[in-house]
């Protein structure tokens, strides 16, 4: 620890202004602050500050993602061997999935963090920790065999056009991780939709349809049991199949207060109520599907716990959060059931509501302003 400090102190002058490695200042700063919380003290305002910072916040979300991530690694292996009718032991399956996901994670972090550091250097900002989480979210919402070059382009698009053009983390309008996925979906649909992509290196004879794919094509007999879908023993994106593991992460987020219960709760409520409304209507078989099925299928739980709750792109007022979450959940199921082109609606619903979140906030705040003006009128009349 002392040795690392000494090394950093020795190298630091080279990266400061005027040093020969000035161009790499942001990178050095990111490294240094990773190892050591800086020695900066308060200069103005409150003399003491909360021990929490962005790194702490992000590591909490990171930890919350781990159960779903590890389950996802196992499930990649499980689905692969299942398609061949094989049942190897736990570690073989896990190792298979681990090797599938590792390059995806490395490419995502490499491209994303590289761009973040470049932008931080240009703007002479500190490197923001936001991508710490985005970089893990993206690998969890893509299929296991996604070509890495496509992934790299998608990540670059998400970081540059989803975040940096708006001014970096905290200023962006749409969720960068979802934007990466949307980019893949629209640019390379062949590699992120259909029945072929959701099981890694699938045996040809085996149907690789996800429950959503079956539902869309009307094969309701093929739907796995609710138990299987809740536990996550189904094909799907790398880290989003297990509702149980996602809920475990969600519980951790709520306990630590980092997650937003208003959005999570209203998202689930919105989806469930849409499901119930469809049941009432009951026009076709998909609409008759019990409402709770929707909550355990596809990316719904993952979207509710990790995507819709992104504090930057969600509504920012407490009242607005309920409206935003509810509408996002509602739209997710609406799109899921009605969109003939693509079996899942969560991604598009959240991105859509991301765009509308500032509008929702605007009207919530307008209510506050109106109250104030009314009081003024009373006082002056």
């Amino acid at each position, binding site marked *: 620890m002392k040795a690392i400090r000494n090394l950093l102190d020795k190298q630091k002058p080279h990266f400061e202004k005027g040093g020969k490695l000035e161009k790499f200042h942001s990178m050095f700063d990111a490294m240094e602050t990773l190892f050591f919380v800086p020695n900066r003290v308060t200069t103005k305002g409150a003399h003491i500050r909360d021990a929490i910072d962005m790194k702490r916040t992000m*590591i909490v979300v990171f930890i919350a993602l781990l159960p779903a991530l590890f389950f996802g690694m196992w499930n990649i292996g499980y689905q692969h061997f299942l398609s061949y009718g094989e049942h190897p032991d736990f570690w073989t399956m896990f190792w298979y999935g681990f090797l599938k996901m590792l390059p995806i994670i490395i490419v995502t972090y490499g491209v994303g963090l590289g761009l973040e550091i470049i932008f931080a250097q240009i703007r002479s900002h500190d490197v923001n920790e936001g991508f710490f989480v985005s970089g893990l979210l993206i690998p969890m919402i893509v299929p296991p065999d996604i070509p890495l070059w496509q992934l790299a382009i998608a990540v670059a698009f998400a970081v540059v056009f989803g975040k940096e053009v708006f001014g970096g983390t905290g200023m962006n309008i749409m969720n960068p991780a979802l934007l990466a996925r949307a980019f893949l979906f629209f640019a390379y649909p062949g590699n992120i939709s259909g029945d072929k992509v959701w099981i890694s290196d699938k045996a040809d004879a085996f149907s690789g349809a996800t429950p959503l794919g079956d539902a869309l094509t009307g094969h309701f007999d093929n739907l796995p049991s609710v138990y299987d879908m809740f536990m996550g023993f189904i094909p799907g994106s790398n880290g989003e199949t297990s509702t149980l593991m996602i809920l475990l992460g969600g519980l951790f987020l709520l306990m*630590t207060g980092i997650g937003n219960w208003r959005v999570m709760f209203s998202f689930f409520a919105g989806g469930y109520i849409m499901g119930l409304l469809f049941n009432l209507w009951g026009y076709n078989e998909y609409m008759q599907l019990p409402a709770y099925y929707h909550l355990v299928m596809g990316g719904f739980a993952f979207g509710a716990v990790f995507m819709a709750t992104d504090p930057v792109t969600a509504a920012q007022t407490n009242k607005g959060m309920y409206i935003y979450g509810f509408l996002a959940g509602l739209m997710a199921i609406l799109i899921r059931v009605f969109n003939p082109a693509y079996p899942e609606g969560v991604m598009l619903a959240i991105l859509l509501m991301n765009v509308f979140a500032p509008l929702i906030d605007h009207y919530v705040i307008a209510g506050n302003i109106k109250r104030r003006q009314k009081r003024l009128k009373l006082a002056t009349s």
Partner: protein
Amino acid sequence: MSTTYKIKKGLNIKLLGEAEKTVVDLNAKRFAINPPDFTGCFPKMLVKEGDDVKAGTPLFYDKYREEIRFTSPVCGKVKEIVRGAKRKMLHVIIETDGKDEAIDFGKVEISSIDRQAIIDKMLASGVWPMVRQRPYAVIANPQDEPKAIFISAFDTAPLAADLDLIVHGQGKEFQAGLDVLTKLTSGKVHLNVDAKNTTSKVFLNSKNVQLNSFSGPHPASNVSVHVSRVDPINKGEVIWYTGPQEVITIGKLFLEGKFNSERIVALAGSEILHPKYYKTYIGARIVNMISGNETGGRNRYISGNVLTGEKIEKDGFVGFYDSMVTVIPEGDHYEFFGWLKPGMNKFSFSHTFLSRLFPNKKFKVDTNLHGGVRGYVMTGKMEKVFPFDIYPLQLVKAILVEDIDLMENLGIYEIDAEDFALCEVIDTSKTNIQDIVRNGLELIRKEMS
């Protein structure tokens, strides 16, 4: 009968080093009036170094409001006029000669004197700056008539001085001060006390005022909180406010005819060996309380509390409005993987550290920022410590873009920078939110004048 208002949102920060309830004499030799304590004041000197002054001798006045004078708290000699960068005046230092001489402003029967005469007397003697106004939290404008006057008789800030102890035995002077204030407004004078902890008869037996009780966590003692609950302020309206020690000084001016600047100041903080109360006068030099009474190592000396106080030097002076001095350790050290530790001893409002499991634990907190400055990412957190019908983050952003209409609409007239202190403490962005709010208030004040 008093009304009780329950404040639900807020946070009591529990720190080590609360002052013991004993009062000793400070015997300070030097005192200072610090022009930066008075927001928006541009000092014009009336004395020079070496001049003899008595308690109540004018030292300087405000260039923009010439009737507002600032007078010497003690009898002695002007020792030094300290200027900083761009010749900004920082301190007017008086060395006391130990004599008790004061300018005679004349005793008067409060019931027989009219409003203008009261204001003139307060202006001439230098007690006027003790009355401040909302909006803007600056010295009250003597030409205004406030719709109400607020006095906060308790303090919920970390390690705050016990005002019951400070006013003990001064019931007559306190009541005289209240009687003076009631003549300054056609509205009510609101004396706001702690529903549980205020027991002093000085407060509870006060007459001719409206007694309101407040319960709940900090910032329950902030003036803005009281105003928001009792008589919310609208654009164009003015309220005045002051503190209990100031009320006593005002009372003494009329009872004794002198500017009696006696103050009791609490010394607290984790780095103080014997935290206790000191009896002295306004603007006392703190070195006598600190010497031999602090732990080794680099410390931060604060006039006021850790949330809103001013950083001062070890031989600095207590601020004009402050009734406490806090000493905490400086935090200019690196912490190896500090953001990854379980954090048994870390103070945090979030639930992300193990210290959360011990809600009654008292902390030793240093001045480290605990992280780098970032954008506003987390939402819904400030609202938990901000007991107003105002959107704090949205108001801060409106100030950052200098949108005056939006600031007005979002309620900037109802708050002061101090109300954002807790937001600033708990925010992950590590930005100086109080400074931002202060700048917003100044922007509007200049725009309106």
